[in-house]
């Protein structure tokens, strides 16, 4: 039942937010300078080619149905980027894409894609500044082209070694496949190590930009703490170990190292600035529940429940309780779902769908009268419900 590859879209075009980057013991210095000037245009052959391909990808994304076509939200995101890197605001263009994953990618031509899944996980403007600052770090330090060159060089070595050793084996005999594999693995790991170093640098650069723009740099540490907590919760609920299973991942220093290094920098920069909760809430008002719905339907309960709990820190609302119930309903935990739906309908801003879900829950428990009453409330609250015929059928049974 495979359809179109989910990796077909925007894969592999720039630095990514959550590639498992980490700060080493020796964190990059705080006084890194940008490696490009405002209005930068590439001069090298390989970089020009990369830009050209990306310009096309950008044209594709600009009018794609996957883009969240909300000029107000994009202007807001662009405005925060402008605060972080005022000299470069003419060079960076922000696009929001509706993909429920915690990610953002900055392409070297200045195309910044922020995934709806990343916005969903934020609670204030400073959180957004954390993501944008990090991506800006990739851009200003020209990480993508450097990374491409490193990969190109390393894979060339791998090819020469493989073929040279294959010929040598043909001449002297014997089997040296193990040696070839060992060397190639080491080279492949060097590519990942290089990218990790870039991630660490982008972290530091981002935090510095945040502080300069008047955001409390501590928000960056909070952001990564949330990411780690969500990841752990998701893994636990999947029944997996929170450790690092594969060889490749084992080569990554732990996330706690990243946090510790960030905390050190934050301490140096000192706490200051405004988190910007109000403007954030306003910018996301019409999107938050849509993005949450996209996340919940992925049936990744650990992650979804962590996100919902965090959004509920400002108080539980009907829609949040309803989505909490949906998480449990999808994973088959009907009793927990029932409790959440009951809580949702008790709140003044209960969404119509909560009444439907609670109604069917009551019917399943044999409470016919209460159940049909909830279903009637659902139809009254959502007169254009697309499943009206189905619900009326249930009511007439």
């Amino acid at each position: 039942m495979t359809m179109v590859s989910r990796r077909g879209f925007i894969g592999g075009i720039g630095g990514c937010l959550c590639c498992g980057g980490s700060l080493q013991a020796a964190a990059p210095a705080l006084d890194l300078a940008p490696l490009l000037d405002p209005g930068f245009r590439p001069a090298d052959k390989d970089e020009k080619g990369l830009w050209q391909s990306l310009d096309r990808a950008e044209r594709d994304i600009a009018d794609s149905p996957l883009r969240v076509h909300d000029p107000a939200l994009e202007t807001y995101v662009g405005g925060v980027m402008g605060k972080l890197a005022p000299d470069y605001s003419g060079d960076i263009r922000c696009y929001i894409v509706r993909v429920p994953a915690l990610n953002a990618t900055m392409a070297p031509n200045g195309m910044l894609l922020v995934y709806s899944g990343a916005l969903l996980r934020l609670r204030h403007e400073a959180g957004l500044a954390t993501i944008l600052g990090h991506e800006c770090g990739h851009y200003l330090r020209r990480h993508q082209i450097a990374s491409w060159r490193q990969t190109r060089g390393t894979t060339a070595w791998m090819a020469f070694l493989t073929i040279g050793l294959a010929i040598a084996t043909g001449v002297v005999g014997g089997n040296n496949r193990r040696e070839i594999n060992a060397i190639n693995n080491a080279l492949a790991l060097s590519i990942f190590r290089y990218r990790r170093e870039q991630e660490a640098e982008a972290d530091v650069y981002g935090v510095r930009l945040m502080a300069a723009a008047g955001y409390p740099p501590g928000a960056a540490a909070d952001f990564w703490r949330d990411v780690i907590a969500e990841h752990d919760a998701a893994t636990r609920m999947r029944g997996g170990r929170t450790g690092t299973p594969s060889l490749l991942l084992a080569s990554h220093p732990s996330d706690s190292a990243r946090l510790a290094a960030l905390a050190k920098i934050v301490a140096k920069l000192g706490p200051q600035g405004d988190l910007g909760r109000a403007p954030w809430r306003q910018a996301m008002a019409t999107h938050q529940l849509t993005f949450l719905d996209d996340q919940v339907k992925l049936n990744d309960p650990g992650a979804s429940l962590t996100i919902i709990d965090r959004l509920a820190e400002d108080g539980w609302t009907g829609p949040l309780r309803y989505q909490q119930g949906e998480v449990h309903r999808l994973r088959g935990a009907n009793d927990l779902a029932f409790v959440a739906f009951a809580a949702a309908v008790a709140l003044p801003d209960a969404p119509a769908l909560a009444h439907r879900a609670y109604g069917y829950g009551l019917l399943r428990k044999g409470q016919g009268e209460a159940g049909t009453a909830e279903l009637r409330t659902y139809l009254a609250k959502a007169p254009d419900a697309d499943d009206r015929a189905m619900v009326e059928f249930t009511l007439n049974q």
Partner: protein
Amino acid sequence: MIRAIVLAALLLSACTTTKKVADRTFKPPDRPFTIVVFRPDIEAGQMTAGGLFEVRADWTQSAELNIAAALTAREAKRGGTLSIYADSTAEPPLRAQISEIVRLHRTVGMAVLRHKYSGAELPTKKRIFDWTLGPGTAPLVAATHADYALFVYARDSFSSGGRRALQVLGYAGCIVLACVAVPGGRLTAFASLVDLKTGQLVWFNVLGASVGDMRSKKGAARMVANLLDTFPEQPKPPPPAP
């Protein structure tokens, strides 16, 4: 991804250069027709020593210009008109419409490549070719003043210095009876013609071997001639009045 499928198609198609698949019932109109080319998808670059594709902007730009010139000249010689649609002069609604059609064509074109060229043959389509973009293309007849849209996809990679050295090393192995074949850069291309009135794909062709270096004018002309060798003919001009 398209590139991978085109490559796979080429690897499997036993033919040396081109193989045409088209709607056999298709008859071009008996009046001269006009063709518009939407966003030709062309990239030229080098294959790095490690076998990665690296786009070169200058090569791509000359390839684009050369192929556009070759297409226009070829059609003019045949008595037809061909224009290259320019995004820069189009109104935003038209631009969005064309994006939609280009994306749809990408998906349909990939299905054609997969099911006509890669061995994943659909038994119900053994002798028919009836893929279509649907009637949504009809408004473009008026908007672009064209009868047909031509879609062109081409990727040409040339072995970098490092890759050539690797190839030499592989061949050198033959001297000591340990040959290693190192694939070098290659050209992959396909083109398809869509009847804008109906949306039908009326002609489709895949090019598998390097027949011309599209970075040069001459090479691009040769490539276009090969790719379009079975292209629907323009009607013969009426005989001059006696």
